[in-house]
């Protein structure tokens, strides 16, 4: 009888704990650090700060954003991987994680994390000057084929995401990537400026990045490398509609923690990330900023990262960017 009573008591306590958010009466009991591997003020920083603010409301403890910049994201990603796996350090990881280890910059990859959920994908698109002679992706590619080496592209650093998106499309269209010389730029905005100043002719990049100049009538987007048009500019065709290409490429952001997180802590964080993603505030924020909001459960996120990793690795080897 006494035993049963004890069991019942334990059971009741367990129910209570579940109801109050799992066996985590003591997690979190101090502030959580949320690492953003990119600088304060950028798009990734804004997404990180929004998520942190919303998770803070759910977790009941401060979630403080910490910018760890440098080395094209290597420093910040390594800081998340290297943190103590106690749930008090998490962070936003970005698509660069699938590239940096192919370049020989670091050993970490998407598999070095406990994924907590993907929140955003921004597909690459091809931007040209509004007054450029080519009115469609087909015409642009024809121009590239007709005069190899004449049209130059820019929009990111040497070997950056957009650089690879463009070269992947060219390869898929059986065009030698070296016929479109790539001019490295510090940011997509810097590349777009050079495009408008007539310094380069092609800018691969996302729609939110080109948005203001497109709305100002300075820049035109020819096609987007996704399976459906973007919500921001639905009139821009996909590469499939434009030239029948199946190439899909873009950048993404997701929340992750170090590996070997305690089960209960992981469950609590997964819940908090999902809740933040689904909140009205986050959805409005993403829509206003023009970022593509997209959810993937941690398991799907992990598979997605592995797929991306393989695709990028192959591409980087082909164009000679991998070590």
């Amino acid at each position, binding site marked *: 009888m006494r035993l049963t009573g004890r069991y019942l008591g334990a059971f009741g306590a367990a129910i209570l704990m579940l109801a109050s958010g799992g066996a985590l009466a003591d997690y979190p009991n*101090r502030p959580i650090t949320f690492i953003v591997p990119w600088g304060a003020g950028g798009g990734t920083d804004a997404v990180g700060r929004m998520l942190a603010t919303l998770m803070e409301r759910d977790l009941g403890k401060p979630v403080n954003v910490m910018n760890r910049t440098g080395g094209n994201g290597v420093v910040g990603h390594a800081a998340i991987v290297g943190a103590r796996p106690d749930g008090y350090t998490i962070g936003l990881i970005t698509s660069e994680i699938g590239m940096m280890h192919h370049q020989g910059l670091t050993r970490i990859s998407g598999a070095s994390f406990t994924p907590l959920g993907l929140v955003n994908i921004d597909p690459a698109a091809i931007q040209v000057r509004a007054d450029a002679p080519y009115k469609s992706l087909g015409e642009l590619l024809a121009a590239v084929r007709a005069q190899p080496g004449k049209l130059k592209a820019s929009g990111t650093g040497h070997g950056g995401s957009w650089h690879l998106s463009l070269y992947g499309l060219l390869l898929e269209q059986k065009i030698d990537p*070296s016929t479109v010389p790539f001019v490295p730029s510090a940011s997509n905005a810097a590349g777009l400026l050079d495009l408008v100043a007539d310094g380069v002719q092609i800018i691969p990049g996302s729609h939110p990045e080109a948005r203001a100049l497109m709305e100002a009538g300075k820049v035109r987007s020819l096609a987007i490398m996704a399976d459906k048009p973007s919500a921001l500019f639905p009139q821009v065709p996909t590469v499939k509609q434009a030239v029948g290409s199946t190439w899909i490429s873009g950048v993404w952001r997701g929340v992750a923690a170090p590996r070997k997180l305690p089960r209960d802590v992981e469950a609590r964080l997964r819940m908090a990330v999902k809740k933040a993603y689904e909140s009205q505030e986050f959805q409005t924020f993403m829509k206003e900023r023009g970022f593509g909001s997209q959810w993937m459960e941690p398991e799907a996120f992990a598979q997605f990262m592995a797929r991306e990793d393989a695709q990028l690795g192959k591409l980087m080897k082909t164009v000679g960017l991998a070590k």
Partner: protein
Amino acid sequence: MKLNDGLVGLLLIAFSLVLLVHVSAFPDMPGQNFGPSVLPSLVAVGLILCSLVLIVRALRASPRHPLVEWDAWVTSPRLVFAFLAVIGAVAFYIAFSETLGYLVAAPLSLLVVLRACGVRWIAALALAVLVSLAIHHVFYTLLKVALPWGLLIEYAW
């Protein structure tokens, strides 16, 4: 410590030569006429040219400056110790703030620096603790900078 300009020039030339050798191993950017070694090489060449002028000027100067001029403080053991103590205190903080935590490492290093500057023991102790706490409040609590907790992780707020 003031080195003769000619000596500085020689050191800079030696440094530039090492630099030139080091950057010559940098790879070129595939298919492009600009590589990562261009700017460092330009800097190295510029440094060598400047150093040559420094050396020529130093040789022409009359009266010739000594190779090394020691400052007064170098002869005072107390000041040399103070100088090294400041550097040591910062180095200590860099090395141990993560494991000991800000609230342990900061007052310790601040105490050393205060003493090195000649503040009396009691005042130094009080200042070290109070200033460390005040900085912690401003940076950690108000501005959300993640100062490390280290040993005190259990008592974190």
